[in-house]
């Protein structure tokens, strides 16, 4: 990478930061204080705007760079990710979006706490929401650091550390000054940039092959070094049974995790009605589906044009496949076109990371202030305004994420994202579905279901090969690996459901019929919705 590439990429990136800061200033003016404003952006976004913002929250750099990279390296097996990420939206659309919009106010815990004893439920759901958000946040920060080191050719350490700190500082500024309104507009701008960049690259790839997908695939298979096997599953997950089960576990986490991600759930509160929430999910499914279809073309395009061996030589995890593809499509490393396209891709990837971390920080600061602080503070203590607490929480979460991001620098980004999904599916989804659909669900069931999913998920990860016992582990020197899979989903998700059921049937208290009636009527009709 030459100096020109770097200068241009930095220029574009600074322009994006300037635009987002302008949005934050604009959104923050004269709108001090109200919780509706801070957490839900005034609830008056249109379904289309919210659909773009949801897509912006969801399409992380891990998908843009990571999935196309996996396809460039392993062919078909990379595609399996995008299918899971998309099908997950049907769970959200069918079972969650409208009902959550109707019964909640700001957070996931609102929905559950409405029919249970409030304090224990809020503490449990608040804790698991913050855990999921922090895991997801760390994944994005690590991604940002890696990206800078890769794209701007920094010599690793220092550039990476400063990027993590810079990203952390920016996300705290966006969230604590701009709240949901600024965060939503940043997501929308980022979505448009990301989709625009992806469409441009896709068109260039297809032009190179004269619109002939068949030739693209055959050429990708030819340049991959694997031949026809490149176009069928098995290159990455086809080895022993452990890796097959690992993939099934990941597949389960991907499809069930989305509906438990706090920053996705909080997006439904930014529109006025359940019907608008439904229409925003439809927009999101269209945008996300189109985006993943295009990343498949980019991945195979990178294999065909750049070559799998070249991609692997640049970055073993494949994260640089799309930037390398852009360089080639623009006319090669020494051409202006190549430099411009490369810089655009780098800037789009930065924009993506910044927007995603802002969304997650907002959701977790809402969980801290609205669920944890409101339940844990001393009754007679002076009550601070909840929004003030949320702003402070954003700063605290920023500091924690920067710290963990620096510590976890060498962990695989895709693994961290998969882990966040697994925890969301184990701890958040069972309690949410039980609350919405099960008449006999009780407070004990709710609390058990959250901890019964959260604790096994975290413990199994601690005992997995990711943490110890292998050459690529976090602590390669020691061996306390007792669980063979990287992803805990296949065990911890069923445990979350079983624990919720067990807690409910062993519960001494009878389920509250009136509260259940209220939840059911409100969730399906929207009566009393804010």
């Amino acid at each position, binding site marked *: 990478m030459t100096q020109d590439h770097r200068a241009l990429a930095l220029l574009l990136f600074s322009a994006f930061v300037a635009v987002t800061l302008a949005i934050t200033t604009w959104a923050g003016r004269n709108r001090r204080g109200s919780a509706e404003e801070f957490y839900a952006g005034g609830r008056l976004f249109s379904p289309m705007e919210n659909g773009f913002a949801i897509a912006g929250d969801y399409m992380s750099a891990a998908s843009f760079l990571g999935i196309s990279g996996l396809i460039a390296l392993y062919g078909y097996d990379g595609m399996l990710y995008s*299918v899971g990420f998309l099908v997950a939206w049907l769970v959200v*659309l*069918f079972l969650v979006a409208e009902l959550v919009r109707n019964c909640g106010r700001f957070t996931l815990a609102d929905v559950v706490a409405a029919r249970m004893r*409030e304090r224990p439920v809020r503490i449990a759901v608040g804790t698991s929401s913050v855990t999921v958000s922090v895991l997801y946040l760390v994944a994005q920060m690590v991604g940002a650091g890696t990206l800078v080191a890769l794209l701007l050719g920094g010599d690793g350490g220092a550039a990476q550390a400063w990027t993590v700190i810079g990203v952390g500082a920016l996300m705290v500024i966006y969230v604590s000054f701009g709240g949901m309104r600024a965060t939503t507009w940043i997501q929308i701008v980022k979505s448009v940039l990301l989709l625009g960049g992806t469409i441009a690259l896709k068109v260039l790839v297809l032009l190179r092959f004269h619109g002939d997908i068949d030739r693209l695939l055959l050429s990708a*298979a030819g340049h991959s070094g694997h031949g026809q096997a490149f176009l069928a599953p098995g290159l990455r997950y086809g080895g022993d049974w452990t890796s097959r089960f690992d993939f099934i576990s990941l597949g389960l986490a991907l499809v069930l995790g989305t509906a438990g991600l706090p920053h996705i759930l909080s997006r439904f509160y930014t529109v006025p009605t359940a019907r608008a929430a439904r*229409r925003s999910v439809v927009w999101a499914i269209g945008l996300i589906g189109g985006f993943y279809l295009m990343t498949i073309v980019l991945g195979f395009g990178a294999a065909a044009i750049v070559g799998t061996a070249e991609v692997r030589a640049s970055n073993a995890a494949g994260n640089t496949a799309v930037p390398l593809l852009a360089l080639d499509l623009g006319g090669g490393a020494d051409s202006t076109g190549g430099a411009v396209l490369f810089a655009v891709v780098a800037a789009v990837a930065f924009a993506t990371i910044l927007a995603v971390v802002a969304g997650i920080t907002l959701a977790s600061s809402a969980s801290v202030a609205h669920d944890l602080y409101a339940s844990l503070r001393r009754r007679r203590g002076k009550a601070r305004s909840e929004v003030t607490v949320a702003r402070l929480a954003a700063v605290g979460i920023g500091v924690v994420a920067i710290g963990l991001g620096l510590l976890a620098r060498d962990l695989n980004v895709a693994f961290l994202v998969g882990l966040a999904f697994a925890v969301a599916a184990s701890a958040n989804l069972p309690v949410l579905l039980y609350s919405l659909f099960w008449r006999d669900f009780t407070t004990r069931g709710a609390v058990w279901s959250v901890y019964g999913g959260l604790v096994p998920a975290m413990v199994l990860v601690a005992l997995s090969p990711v943490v110890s016992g292998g050459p690529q582990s976090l602590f390669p020197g020691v061996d306390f690996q007792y669980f063979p899979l990287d992803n805990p989903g296949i065990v911890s998700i069923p445990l979350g459901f079983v624990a919720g059921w067990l807690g409910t049937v062993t519960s001494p208290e009878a389920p509250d019929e009136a509260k259940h009636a209220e939840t059911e*009527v409100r969730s399906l009709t929207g009566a009393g919705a804010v």
Partner: protein
Amino acid sequence: MEVPDAAPPAAADVYLEVQRSAAFQEVRSRYRRFVLPAAAGFLSWYFAYVVTATTAPDLMARPVAGAVNVAMLAGLGQFLTTFLLTWAYTRHARLRRDRAALELRWDTQELTRGTKGGVA
């Protein structure tokens, strides 16, 4: 923060009454009759796809036409069914559920207005 367990507020009776009403039962059963089979369907189709891809790669590698094999068709089929189900769900909700739900919403809010614990 906690709601006192003393005499149940009148709003609770309203919600119980609405829940038992025929109109609400109809909305609920229309929703569930669509959502539950459809969710079971797409989840089974997705898991069948994931399990087949990981356990029977030979079947998935069988060529169909040109470079396209069974695996490609199955993957694109997942995209297609997702888009189709999205369309079917919104159509069902718009035509069979929205109007009745909205009427119930106004009726319920009318009934809870002024009751203790009700939403104004």
